[in-house]
Each structure stands twice: as C-alpha cells, then as structure tokens.
C-alpha cells in the first residue's frame, strides 16, 4: 500500500489512455461492453496505481492484495489496466474476444495471469471475496481484498448473502466497491428494480458506507485509505459514476452497455478523449 500519492496529472493521462485502449479493443473485437468499462476507469486506476500491493512481474506474490472483478463483463477495462500496469504487452489488447485469446469475453483466470478469478455470471464475486478475506484472517495475513460490483449486479440475492456473511465475520479486510452508474441493460436502475435507498441498504447489512464521486481520483484514494482504517466491519465504497464516461454520445445512455463502437464512432470517441484537458 503506497503511502505517497502518485501525480494526479499522470493518473488522469493514464485514465485517458486506458479509455482509448478500451474503445480500440472493443472496436477490434466487434462486441463487448463499453458503458460499464468506461465508468470504472478511475476506480481501477486508484486501486492499481495507488492502493493495491501487487507486482506485475509476480502475479501470484503471496501477500498481494486481491482484486475481484465481480462485474466481469467490463473486463476490457481490467485488461487495459493490467496491460498498462505491465502484466502483459499492450499489443495483446486487440486480441480481445478472439478465439484462442487470453483475453476472453469475460475474464478467465486460467488464461491470464493477474486475474484472481473467472467471472461473468453476476453476483458471485463478493462471495468469492468473502472466502478470500476469511482465508486471510485465518492465516493472520495482512493482504486485503477489493471487489468491484455493478449497481445493477446487486439485484442478485447472492450479493446480499455475501454482504451478510462479511458482516457476520467482521471482515474489515474486505472493501467492496459499487460502480453506481445508475444504468443497467433495460434502463435506469430505479426503473428496472429500485435500489434506493441504496446506502441505507448496505448500512443495514452492517457495512461502513463511503460515498464518493467515482471519477475523482483523490476522493477514491481517500476512500480506499479510510476503508483500510475501519476495523470490525467491511466497507463499501459507493462510487457515483457516469456510464460511458468520457465519450459524449455514450454518457448515460443505457444502449451502450453491451454495444461496441463502429469505426466512425471510435474515431469520434478518440478525438473527444484527446481533446479533453488533463
């Protein structure tokens, strides 16, 4: 866990580059999930460049922090993050979803070092994270577990089973993060299946709740630090985000959940990202 904050300007440039790589790889794949990938970039960057103890050269380092991508469909974002972090060459990003690729359409841990689990069937990652956190407690190990969920994903009952268990076992080494972009495939989360009062739900399950702007890197890093300091209960960071963040025609549009950009749309998106000040 780095005590020193990295340079924010650098991180913002990195976020931009990661967004570009996400979109390029999706256009190349001709399918995939841009909306929820773009909304999660700062969440991931604040973890992988600040908070998490990890070593790209030693992905199985015993006392590494674990990151579980429960919302597995946004693997284009995780793959881009891992590539930029040095887990594998960036050139491989364009093999996303191609037959034989280590970059499967939903992450598969047997194909890519750096993945802590396979995922894609929603609602299972928090439970897996509970299991990891229990093991760490049993072994008196200091490593922490971070689990990123989608807000729509928390429609799944299993998430709440895991939330109960995390509280029951006082898993203060577990930090959940919800990408609260307020959209799912069928539309606004509140129209599909009401989540509000959302923070109250997590508190009722015994979690500490930290609500942040999910695109504010400093706020995210503060939240991760705060979560580590909280003892006796797990913490969830509710990151308020914009689905499709960074691309004007994708922002807050449910239809960009699972539709990859075409060549023209990609060009437009890349131009927009390049034009944004960092």
């Amino acid at each position: 866990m780095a005590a020193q904050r990295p340079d924010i300007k650098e991180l913002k440039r990195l976020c931009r580059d990661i967004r570009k790589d996400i979109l390029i790889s999706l256009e190349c794949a001709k399918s995939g999930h841009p909306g929820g990938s773009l909304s999660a970039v700062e969440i991931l960057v604040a973890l992988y460049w600040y908070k998490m103890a990890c070593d790209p050269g030693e992905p199985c380092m015993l006392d590494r922090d674990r990151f579980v991508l429960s919302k597995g469909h946004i693997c284009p974002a995780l793959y881009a993050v891992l590539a930029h972090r040095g887990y594998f060459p960036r050139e491989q990003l364009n093999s996303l979803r191609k037959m034989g690729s280590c970059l499967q359409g939903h992450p598969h841990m047997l194909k890519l070092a750096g993945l802590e689990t396979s995922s894609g069937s929603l609602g299972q990652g928090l439970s897996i994270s509970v299991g990891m956190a229990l093991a760490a407690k049993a072994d008196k190990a200091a490593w922490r577990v971070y689990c990123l969920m989608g807000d729509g994903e928390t429609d799944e009952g299993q998430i709440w089973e895991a939330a109960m268990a995390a509280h029951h076992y006082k898993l203060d080494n577990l930090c959940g993060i919800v990408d609260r972009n307020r959209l799912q495939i069928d539309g606004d989360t509140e129209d599909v299946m009401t989540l509000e009062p959302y923070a109250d739900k997590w508190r009722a399950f015994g979690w500490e709740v930290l609500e942040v702007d999910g695109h504010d890197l400093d706020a995210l890093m503060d939240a991760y630090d705060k979560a580590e300091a909280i003892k006796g209960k797990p913490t969830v960071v509710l990151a308020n985000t914009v689905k499709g963040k960074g691309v004007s025609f994708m922002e807050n549009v449910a239809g960009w959940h699972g539709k990859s950009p075409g060549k023209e749309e990609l060009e437009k998106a890349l131009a927009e990202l390049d034009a944004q000040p960092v």
Partner: protein
Amino acid sequence: MPEMKPSRDGYGEGLVWLGEHNPNVVVLGADLTSSTRADWFQEKFPERFYSIGIAEQNMLCVAAGLSLSGKIPFVCTYGVFVAGRAWDQVRTTICYANLNVKIGGAHGGISVGPDGATHQALEDIALMRVLPNMTVVVPCDSIETRKATIAIGQQVEGPGYVRFGREPIPIVTEESTPFTVGKAATFRPGNDVSVIACGYLVGEAMNAAEQLEQEGISTRVINLHTVKPIDREAIVKAAQETGAIVAAEEHQVMAGFCGAVAEVVVNECPVPMRFVGIQDRFGESGEPEELLCEFNCTANDIVAGVKQVLEMKGK
C-alpha cells in the same frame, strides 16, 4: 444380517480424518451441520468451520475464495440445494476455473423418506457429471463414503462431488476393500450378465445376484462408484465378456449414472442394456423401504431388468 450404517456417517468420519491430517482443510455449513455430520469436524476444529447459514450460492463461492487462498474447503448440504440451487456457482465459479472445492451432496435418492420430493435429490448425479472438470463419486456404503471423502480431499485435484443418502444402509465392503477414484471394482464375478451399479443399489445388486444364482444365472456385479471419470475399461470388459448390462442407480434413469454407462456401451461395445432407477418422476413422502419399492430401486427391479436384458440378448 449385515451391519447397517448411514453413509453420511462415512462423510463425517472422512472430514475428521482430513482435518487431522491436513491443516488446510476447512468445512462450511449451510445450517444443516448436524444432519450432514459436518458437526463432528466442527467439534474438533471449530476455528476451521464456517457457518454460512441458509445461503447455498454464497457458500459455494465463499468456498471458491477459500480455495483460491490455499485452503481445501468442503461444503455440504442436501443434493437438491448444492447441485440444484447453486448449480451456476458450481459451474461457472468452480468448475470453469477448476478450483479445489469439494462438495458433499447429502440426502441423495428416494430413500430420504418422509421429507418428500423437495428434499429427495434425484437429479444431482446428472447435474454434476455434465460439468467439465468435475469428479463425481457415489459410494456404496459408509466405509466407502469415508474413503471417497478422503480421496476427494487429498487425491483428486480440482472440483469433486461425493453423493450419499440419509438412511442406514448395509455395509457391503470392508476396511481392506481397495478403493481408487476412477477405478470400478468387481464385487462378484459372473458370465451371463453384468449389473453395474452405484450407491445403495450396489448392495441390492449383490442381493439380486444371489437370487439369480438360484435360477442358474451367473451375474457379474460391478461397483462403479466413480461416475466421472468413468472406468471405460471395466464397462467395455463387462460388455464384451457378458454381452448384457443392467445399470442401476437411486436417481432418475435419464442422464445420470445409467446414461453415463450407456454412453460407453453405445460408443464402444453396444450390447442390450436396461436401466434400473427412478422412472422420470418426482418422489413423495413415505418410509424409505416402501419408497424404494414404489420407485423401482430394489433387488427385485434389478432381477427383472436382468431377465429383460437376457431376453434381448437371446434374440
């Protein structure tokens, strides 16, 4: 009169043995701890037992997380819940990533009794064997269940499912009886027909063979405890040498054990076959003995099956 013992006792004993021999073995319970005999492990190793409550899907994935962190987790609940309710979790989190999670499927079969259909697992062998990377073992008695549990815990790499029932059933093996996952055991030699069975029906097959002996029919009885990976050699040998096969399971006759045996027979050495088991029906409440009768899981059903298949063989 053979000794009677529930095979779930064998599971409980196996867990304790594993707990004594491997500090990484942990056990999870879904509020059925006593019924599944996981409480024996819990008493001896309380710090290695995790109560998860009535939350099977969570339990399977918590076990996955534990296995990813160096533990060897055993989860156990009734087969209907662990193989049914949590099937996606077993498939997509555990089997897909080939994780070292061990599953006890309790209350298998119609002999579960008065609880009725909701608690009688009649489909779990099919549900589990269709998953890549899964090992499926259906031991024939309590002694074998203990051995199977231990083998799944320390020899099998990756996911494993051991299925057992609720009621006391006859002990048909001995401590010295060899047991190897994936290797069928011929319990009785014979030339006219082979009965290939798993679980409680192995004992019934032995009874059937005795009966058939009186009528001059020489019946080979094979205990095919491992449904997956299946011992193709033993099945092919039986088909080649006896020319007629009856497969028997306390489970639906579609897609489970009988199907697994038939797949080998059809592919490699087609001979007449009959299936003994539940005939595509849900169970119901009753006493175990009367249910086994009503639902065609007895020695008499095996005898009838043998006669049918011998007639087909004769043609």
